[in-house]
């Protein structure tokens, strides 16, 4: 395991060294446009603004007794893919607009316990709630290429995004052991139901990130990571208790109100699209110096 990790690190280092030290060209892309594809994974951090409960007791007023326990950042995984268009105003400043599809996931668990002292019976129920919300997403960002002298170009970018909800789904896995984990030999599952009507249709926020592009004559490959912070609340307050899927009373489930932050890591592949396929974005460094 450790050997594999070391080997991977060495291979990665070699590749970076090869690409960065062995660069023969510099990139010239002023007034050029690119069209590309992106795809990758994302991780979600819900920020709870209001907690709601179906099951209530005097203790609930003091909080925490029936609070949902949300999974950690890297356990709330999702995926995204899309297309993007960029236009370079200068050799280092560009504006990027895109259109994509993003599925974000967030999970939590709840647990309840009842003790029947008369019949000597105890019932524990732990429920793991898995939610997935899918959005059509439109990011608009300004990108600054930090170094433009080689083919390997690191950049920072920032801007806004808009999300349009497509669908939202949920399922619940439950067992009778309260341990914070799904107990495999005791696990049952609900059906997968739509929670689209419980979620708001639109969100927007700020996004920013870093990345690395490698330019060739005909295409560009890149790796980037962006953080997104949504301004608006995710859940629809009006439909919270409408119990459209029957989960409210069966699983004592009602969604908290939240805002959502998201970190994505994605690969990109772009081609220059201005005028012709041979856009001459690469020039030999020597030739460049002479001019």
């Amino acid at each position, binding site marked *: 395991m450790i050997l594999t990790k070391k080997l991977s690190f060495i291979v990665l280092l070699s590749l970076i060294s090869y690409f960065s030290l062995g660069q023969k060209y510099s990139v010239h892309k002023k007034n050029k446009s690119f069209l590309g594809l992106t795809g990758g994974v994302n991780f979600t951090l819900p920020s709870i603004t209001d907690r709601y409960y179906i099951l*209530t007791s005097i203790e609930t*007023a003091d909080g925490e007794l029936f609070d949902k326990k949300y999974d950690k950042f890297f356990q709330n995984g999702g995926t995204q893919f899309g297309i993007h268009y960029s236009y370079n105003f200068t050799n280092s400043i560009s504006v990027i607009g895109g259109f994509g599809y993003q599925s974000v996931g967030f999970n939590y668990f709840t647990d309840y316990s*009842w003790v*029947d002292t008369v019949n000597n019976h105890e019932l524990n129920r732990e429920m793991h709630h898995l939610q997935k919300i899918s959005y059509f997403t*439109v990011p608009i960002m300004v990108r600054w290429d930090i170094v433009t002298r080689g083919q390997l170009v690191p950049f920072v970018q920032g801007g806004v995004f808009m999300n349009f909800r497509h669908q939202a789904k949920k399922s619940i896995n439950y067992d009778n052991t309260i341990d914070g984990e799904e107990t495999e030999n005791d696990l049952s599952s609900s059906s997968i139901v739509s929670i689209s009507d419980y979620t708001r249709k639109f969100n927007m926020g700020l996004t920013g990130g870093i990345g690395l592009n490698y330019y060739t004559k005909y295409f560009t490959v890149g790796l980037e990571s962006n953080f997104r912070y949504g301004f608006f609340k995710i859940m629809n*307050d009006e439909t919270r208790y409408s119990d459209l899927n029957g989960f409210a009373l069966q699983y004592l489930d009602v969604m908290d109100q939240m805002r959502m932050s998201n970190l994505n890591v994605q690969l990109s592949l772009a081609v220059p699209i201005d005028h012709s396929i041979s856009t001459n974005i690469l020039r030999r460094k020597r030739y460049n110096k002479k001019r």
Partner: protein
Amino acid sequence: MTSPKFFFRLLFLVAFGLLSTGCKKKEYKPEESFIKVYNDDDGSRNYFPLSMQQTSDEGYLILSAYNGWNIHLLKTDKEGDMLWEYDLPSKYINAVPTFMKRNTGLYFVCMDAVGLHTYVMQVDETSRSAVEFQEFQQLKYPLYVADNSSAVYIQNYERSSYKTGITKLNAAMDQIEEFGSVNIFTDVEDKIVDHLSYTGKRFPFHVSVTPENDYVVMSGFNNYSFSTVFLDSDLDFSGVYNGAAFDGGLNSILPLGGNKFALARFSFSNLYYNPSATLSPTAIDIAESIQAEGKAELDAESPVLIKNIAIEGTEYTTYLATTKSNQLLLNFYQKGSNVLKGTKYLGQSAPLKACDFAKTTDEGLMIAARVTLMSSFNRIATIKLSKEELAAIVE
């Protein structure tokens, strides 16, 4: 080639448009709509809500039976969250529906565990309890109470004479004004005890007064059956719709005025609705002769509640019942007619049983029900529908 400027302008235009239309016009109020289940982690306790009343602070008070005929009070805030609960001492048992309201005070009727006689209890929200308000030694086995603000009517069982009694109290609830009774001719104490202790069939005892104040309508034991009896203003017998022994009769009845009644009747396991029946208070007839529409999906053993509810200025005769698959079913009929204007099912997988419902001060609808949690524990539940949700049902 399309200009990049055009592309980005278009994007910003779309974003601006969405932001403009995305602004919420209505402020969210959590008290408008909710579902709550009131927890008790003691798995040996079973609850059965009986009556629910909105209080002056816009919260709700729920009167329930637990573990048979013991009495439980629960107070919630306006968002349905539990504020306090109180188990009455074991001396007081068998609370009967419904609450009575005098000024801001709430009262209910219950029974003495040993003497079997009747108490009127007053809820004391300050001390979060209930205290004795009045005691009526002569009234044994209270079964139902009705209040029309000017008088209170208590139905009871006279165990020594095999009679169903009806007693009219004054508005202050401290004196008996009238008393009447009908003959059962047989001992039904075992049925009464099964009903009170929740160990057998729960009979739909009922008392109400016609809007004209000329007749008292009482469903209870009479003449070897479960019948609906009309009594005049002196509580003398006037007419009767006899049930089919103890297996048929009226499940619920709401006087609409002018000899019109909204009713539900049962015959063994079948339930029938007629939201606009014409009954004669002086007739001697059988309940099964009343024309009514069969409701095959409904559970005849569960309570049926009928009330007039105004939605956006229009009165609807509203039925709340329990389906055989343990959902709640709301039916809204145009008042005084058989025209069904709206239907709403509540609940899906967790078994629910209808207990009470009422219009709220914010024009919504509050329902008290019994829910069976995890297929095991009977608990008190409330379901609040907002004004908008209510209006959407009858659109």
